[in-house]
């Protein structure tokens, strides 16, 4: 119940931002919502099931391209976003069926290849996808200010949907089973968990919202090309965000996204030349000082305070 209240309040506050902020602030909020979706999605497979996936970039790029191509052929934007999510989910289920028997590093490497594979497919089919030239999307007939609001609401809506799904999953049999798999997959299997089906479900969940985020992003920027939407950073940043916020928690991914985006923006504005090093620095600090993330740390603090007289 408490999770739902937090979710609704935070969503409402974010939705009120256009009243106070300028377009710069709205852009930041939209980016944060987008990364919250990516991080939350990664949490299904990486946090709950314990499978370190780098396929986020693949789902993102796939969603962006599916939606862009459908819109070029005349489909309305929102319908194209839905299709992008569906295709990303089916693609995840299909790829998951092929690689989810791999564990640990082997799984991570296999997922890393998926985005590269898609990128090459796009590059080699220029008639269909624009290839290396990229793809222009139909222009939206809206003022700049209206667009900024529209995309904030779209990304915010998606992150609400994604977090709501996370809350439902965590409390369900699926979430329970995934935590068992993360802790001890063989023991989970002999208890009666169809580990293959559970992992595939988690991987599909980690694809669907990312595909839609990619689709919305494509409309937002009006133009996509392979290096942009299959960027490996799209796979790495969500992972860092979840580790920062708290693996397997409900609000950890969103908190991690907010902190990382804020930090990046700060570094970007003040120390442009070391921007790239900053991400590496955060990863090192994380591993050394915050292996469990912020949410579990806070929870521990609260529990300790509650326990002491």
């Amino acid at each position, binding site marked *: 119940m408490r999770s739902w209240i937090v979710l609704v309040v935070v969503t409402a506050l974010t939705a009120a931002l256009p009243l106070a902020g300028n377009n710069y602030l709205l852009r930041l909020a939209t980016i944060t919502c987008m990364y919250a979706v990516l991080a939350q999605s990664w949490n299904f497979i990486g946090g709950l099931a314990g499978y370190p996936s780098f396929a986020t970039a693949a789902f993102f790029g796939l969603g962006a391209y599916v939606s862009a191509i459908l819109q070029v052929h005349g489909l309305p934007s929102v319908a194209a976003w839905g299709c992008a999510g569906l295709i990303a989910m089916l693609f995840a289920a299909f790829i998951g069926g092929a690689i989810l028997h791999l564990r640990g590093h082997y799984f991570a490497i296999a997922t890393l290849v998926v985005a590269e594979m898609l990128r090459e497919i796009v590059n080699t089919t220029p008639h269909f996808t624009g290839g290396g030239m990229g793809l222009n999307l139909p222009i939206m007939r809206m003022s700049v200010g209206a667009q900024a609001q529209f995309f904030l609401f779209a990304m915010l809506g998606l992150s609400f949907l994604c977090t709501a799904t996370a809350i439902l999953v965590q409390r369900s049999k699926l979430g*329970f089973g995934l935590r068992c798999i993360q802790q001890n997959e063989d023991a989970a299997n002999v*208890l009666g968990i169809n580990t293959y089906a559970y992992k595939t479900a988690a991987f599909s969940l980690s694809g669907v919202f990312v595909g839609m985020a990619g689709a919305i992003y494509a409309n937002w920027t009006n133009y996509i090309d392979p290096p942009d939407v299959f960027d490996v950073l799209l796979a790495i940043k969500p992972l860092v965000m979840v580790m920062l916020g708290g693996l397997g928690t409900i609000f950890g991914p969103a908190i991690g996204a907010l902190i990382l985006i804020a930090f990046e923006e700060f570094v970007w504005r003040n120390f442009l030349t070391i921007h790239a090093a900053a991400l590496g620095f955060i990863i090192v600090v994380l591993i050394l000082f915050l292996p469990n993330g912020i949410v579990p740390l806070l929870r521990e603090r609260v529990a300790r305070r509650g326990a002491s007289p």
Partner: protein
Amino acid sequence: MSALLELEDVTRRFGGLNAVEGVSFSVAQGEIVGLIGPNGAGKTTLIDVITGVHPASSGRVRFDGQDITHRRPHQIARLGLARTFQIVQPFPKMTVLENAAAGALFSGAASSVHDAYAAARQQLEFTGLADLTDRPAATLTLARRKRLELAKSLAMKPRLLMLDEVNAGLNAAEIAGALELIREIANLGVTIIVIEHLMRVVLSISHRLVVLHHGQLIAQGPPHQVVSDRRVIEAYLGSKYAAADRGPAS
């Protein structure tokens, strides 16, 4: 008595090694069968074959009349075959209650997460872990983790329970407690296969013994008859001792 579990000429190969070779035996409803043999005899592999973790390379495994030879582990678990592991396999960061509830939930014994917790509490009560429900499983002592394995398996409402060395590493007092528990489980009508190295333990609870050596079944029958079997003594103590003990071969 009808056979609950039947093995027919079961062989399991790992590369060139026959870990289990041509083993046939059956377990009747309500029986406690002791599965014994020297280290490396293939006891744990046989359990892995029955539970589908390492399916048989040839031969048949039947449970309650159904052929389960090539079923997947989770399907076999849902039919009511539960096992404990020689090296305990809890979900370390989950609480004791969650561990037990997982057994109830995924075996199909409980229909909802809520029911699973209720069933788990009951089994924790039965195995004497009721005070520890909220502790992470990793913080328990070995004896208690073994009890937790039992609680987890029992929460699955098994018809056949396979206990792989539940007493290894326990002290005498803990073993006495564990034996008492196994007898109580048997009284509930659960059929049990016990793998055990401690002869005193096996002899005191088994109705029947099955002996493996180098992957082959070398003897089976009532406990006291089996332990005086020449091949069994040979397997455990060497041929010299067998000859000295029994005099010239008959």
